[in-house]
């Protein structure tokens, strides 16, 4: 008889932990890419594939977050740098250099007014530009 899954010292049955599910709609070419990758990597399940992909992505994000570049190097020393726009977003900005602005008195007056007031609501164009 299988042992009941009991919480130690309580006699209560432990709640089964529910694993989050992940579902994705794939375009046909993405589906075939996934199948091909699974075959090459000898992965049998989608869960294993997903887990490996997450590990790789996690590593890439962590490297880029530290400002490291991700480079592939061929046998003859030819290097290629991975540039992935999404990944570039986690890369740290090196401190932007400081320059001097010569302000006119009118500019400073208007600037002071704007700084002292509530920020303007974003325009539609700005909202669209900040999407994605």
């Amino acid at each position, binding site marked *: 008889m299988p042992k009941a899954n009991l919480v130690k010292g309580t006699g209560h049955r432990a709640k089964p932990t529910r694993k989050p599910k992940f579902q994705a709609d794939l375009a046909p070419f993405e589906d075939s890419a996934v199948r091909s990758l699974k075959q090459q990597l000898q992965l049998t399940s989608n869960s294993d594939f997903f887990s490996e992909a997450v590990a790789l992505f996690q590593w890439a994000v962590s490297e880029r977050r530290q400002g490291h570049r991700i480079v592939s190097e061929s046998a003859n020393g030819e290097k290629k740098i991975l*540039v992935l*726009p999404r990944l*570039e*977003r986690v890369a*740290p*900005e*090196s*401190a*932007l*250099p*400081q*320059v*001097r*602005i010569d*302000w*006119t*008195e*009118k*500019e*400073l*007056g*208007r*600037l*002071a*007014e*704007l*700084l*002292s007031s509530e*920020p*303007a*609501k*974003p*325009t539609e*164009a*700005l*909202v669209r*530009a*900040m*999407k*994605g």
Partner: protein
Amino acid sequence: MATVIRRLEESDSPENCDCRDEALNNYLKRHAWNNQQKSSIGVTYVAIDELAPGAVIGYFTLATSSALRDSFPKKYVRGLPAYDVPVILLARLAVDHRFGGHGLGRELLSEALRVSLRASKQVGCRCVIVDAYPTAVEWYQRYGFTALEVNKRSPVRMYLDIRTIEAARSVS
């Protein structure tokens, strides 16, 4: 056409980028790399056509600056923070004319504002300032930039509050 926007690298080829503006072309070709790597005067981000790696088709340059508290007219000082006001200067933004009209300028501005927003979390900054050509003032106004002094200067200095950018991102 797929483009990538990233920091300028030494191996990039800005020679063929033609923004139809001598000053903007000249800056990209002669000064952008040195100013970024050697002098730390400005950091340049370039748009690269993925089909022609390294070929620059647009760019922008960012730097930080400030408005000194003591320089504000006395009557305005009371409402201001007790410190100099840190700002990010969008020093240049240009698109190769052959790639104009496809939203690349918007993509560059959008990335410049994202970088500014991230930088504001790391070093503090209150607004983005741009010195816009009079012909570009209306374009910047569409994105919420406000002219600080109207009909006075060429270029026109314009302001966008960092909190407005943050709000735009939250809506998105």
